[in-house]
C-alpha cells in the first residue's frame, strides 16, 4: 500500500536531498573529530561545521557571530539550557499557554526550586490575549519564552506584538521554533530575540540528534552551561572556558548530524523557506477547506495563521481508532494523542481526549491531501452507517 507521511511535526520525512549522502561521506571518508587536532581531515570537518553555523545564522537572520550558534542534541536540550541556565529561585518567567513539555517539564522542576511561572492566556481557539501580557510582567521577570507555532494546533504565536513589549521593557525573549524553523521565515534580528532554539530534524530537514541554540551576546553572558567538560580548548584549565561556542559545547559533537544538517541547510537555501511556506500553506488550506461539513472539530480554529499542522477531534469516534484506520486502510501516517503538550490541549479544550494530528511537509502533494480527505470522509461516513 502506498504510504502518505503526515507526521512532519514529529519529524520530517523524507529528509532533504543530500542529507544521507553527507552523513555517509563523513562516516566513511572523514571520521576525524573537530576542535581538537589540526590535520587536514579534522579541519575539513571543522569547515563544514562552521559552514553549518553560518548557514543556520543566515536562515534565521541572526546578527551575531558564528560562535554564538551553539549545536545541541535537539531543541529540548536547548530549551533546558535556556531555562535552567538563566533562571534561579525568586525569579519569574512568562510563557504561552500552548507550550510543549520540552518547556513545561523543565519549568515544573524550576517551580519546585522557587521560580515563578506565568502563562499568557489564550482562548479555546488558541488566540493569545496579547493585551494581558504586559500586565504579567513583574520586577522579578527575567525571561519570556514562547513557542513560535503550536505543535498541536499549528497556530502561529503573535510574536511581533510580544517582541515589541519585551524590547520596550528590556526583557529577554526566547523563541522555541521547533514547529516553525524551515517552515516559515524567522527574523532573530527583527524580533530582537535573545535566544532561539531549533531542532535539526523537523522543518530544517536534517537528521535526529542535532539542533541548535542561537544566543545574543548579552543573554549568552548570563547563561550557565548545563553540561561541562572537554572542548579541545584551554586544556590546561579545569574550568569551563568562557568563550563561545565552547562554553556550551562540552564533549565530542555530533559531527555526522552536523554534516547532515549542513546539507539540509544548503537545500533549504536553494528551495527557499518562503517557497516551502507557500507550498505548505496551500496544502493546509486545501485540507481545511475539504474538512467543511464533516463531524469533527479543528483545534485552534480554521481562520487563524498557522503552519502546516492541523489537529482534528473526531467527537463521535475515538481518535486512536481514526488514526489506526488511517494507517491500516489508507497508509496515512498521523500522530494521535496529546503530542507531549498537555498544556496546549487543556487550552484548546481537547484534554485528555487529544486529537489526530496531520502535519504537512515540503514533500507532500495536493494529491496526498485529496486522498487523505477522501479517507477521512469514508471513516466519518462509516461511523454514520
Amino acid at each position, binding site marked *: 500500500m502506498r504510504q502518505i507521511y503526515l507526521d512532519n511535526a514529529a519529524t520530517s520525512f523524507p529528509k532533504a536531498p543530500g542529507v544521507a549522502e553527507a552523513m555517509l561521506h563523513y562516516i566513511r571518508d572523514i571520521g576525524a573529530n*573537530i*576542535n*581538537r*587536532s*589540526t590535520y587536514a581531515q579534522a*579541519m575539513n570537518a*571543522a*569547515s563544514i561545521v*562552521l559552514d553549518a*553555523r553560518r548557514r543556520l545564522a543566515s536562515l534565521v537572520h541572526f546578527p551575531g*557571530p*558564528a*560562535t554564538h550558534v551553539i549545536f545541541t542534541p535537539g531543541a529540548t536540550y536547548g530549551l533546558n539550557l535556556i531555562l535552567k541556565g538563566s533562571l534561579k529561585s525568586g525569579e519569574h518567567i512568562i510563557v504561552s499557554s500552548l507550550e510543549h513539555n520540552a518547556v513545561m517539564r523543565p519549568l515544573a522542576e524550576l517551580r519546585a526550586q522557587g521560580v515563578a511561572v506565568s502563562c499568557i492566556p489564550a482562548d479555546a481557539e488558541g488566540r493569545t490575549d496579547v493585551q494581558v501580557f504586559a500586565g504579567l510582567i513583574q520586577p522579578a521577570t527575567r525571561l519570556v519564552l514562547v513557542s513560535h507555532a503550536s505543535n498541536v494546533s499549528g497556530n502561529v504565536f503573535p510574536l511581533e506584538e510580544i517582541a515589541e513589549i519585551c524590547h520596550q521593557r528590556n526583557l529577554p525573549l526566547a523563541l522555541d521554533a521547533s514547529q516553525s524553523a524551515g517552515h516559515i521565515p524567522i527574523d532573530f534580528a527583527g524580533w530582537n530575540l535573545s535566544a532561539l532554539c531549533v531542532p535539526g530534524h523537523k522543518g530544517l530537514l536534517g537528521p535526529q540528534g542535532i539542533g541548535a541554540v542561537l544566543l545574543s551576546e548579552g543573554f549568552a553572558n548570563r547563561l550557565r552551561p548545563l553540561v561541562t567538560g572537554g*572542548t*579541545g*580548548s*584551554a*586544556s*590546561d584549565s579545569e574550568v569551563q*572556558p568562557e*568563550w563561545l*561556542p*565552547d562554553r556550551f559545547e562540552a564533549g565530542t559533537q555530533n559531527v555526522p548530524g552536523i554534516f547532515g544538517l549542513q546539507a539540509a541547510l544548503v537545500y533549504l537555501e536553494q528551495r527557499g523557506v518562503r517557497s516551502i511556506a507557500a507550498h505548505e500553506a496551500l496544502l493546509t488550506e486545501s485540507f481545511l477547506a475539504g474538512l467543511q461539513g464533516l463531524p469533527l472539530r479543528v483545534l485552534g480554529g480554521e481562520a487563524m495563521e498557522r503552519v502546516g499542522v492541523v489537529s482534528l477531534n473526531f467527537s463521535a469516534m475515538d481518535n486512536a481508532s481514526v488514526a489506526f484506520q488511517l494507517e491500516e486502510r489508507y497508509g496515512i501516517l498521523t500522530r494521535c494523542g496529546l503530542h507531549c503538550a498537555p498544556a496546549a490541549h487543556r487550552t484548546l479544550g481537547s484534554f485528555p481526549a487529544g486529537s489526530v494530528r496531520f502535519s504537512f511537509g515540503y514533500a507532500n502533494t495536493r494529491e496526498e491531501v485529496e486522498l487523505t480527505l477522501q479517507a477521512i470522509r469514508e471513516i466519518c461516513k462509516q461511523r454514520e452507517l
Partner: protein
Amino acid sequence: MPEEEKDYYVLFHNHTEGLELYQYVRSRGISVKISPTPRVASVCCGMSLLVGADAIAEVRQCIEASQAAYDRIVALPRQIDPHRDKFC
C-alpha cells in the same frame, strides 16, 4: 632575532575563531597554514595560524578588517630550516 628567522603564530580561543580567520585570510590570497599551537606559545591544545614574516602585516590588516576574534600573536624562532632537504 632577525625578522627572516621568525615565524608568527596567531593564537585563538578555539577552532571556530581560527577557521573563520583562516578562511578570510585565504580568500584574500595570503599564504598561511593551520598549525597546532606551539607548546612554548600556549599550553592550550588549540589551533593556530602559522604566518611567515613576509605576510604578518597583511594578516594583521585582515584581523582589523574582519574584526576577527583571536587570542594573541606570538613570534617564535623558526623551528624548521626552510632549506632543509633542499638538495637531498
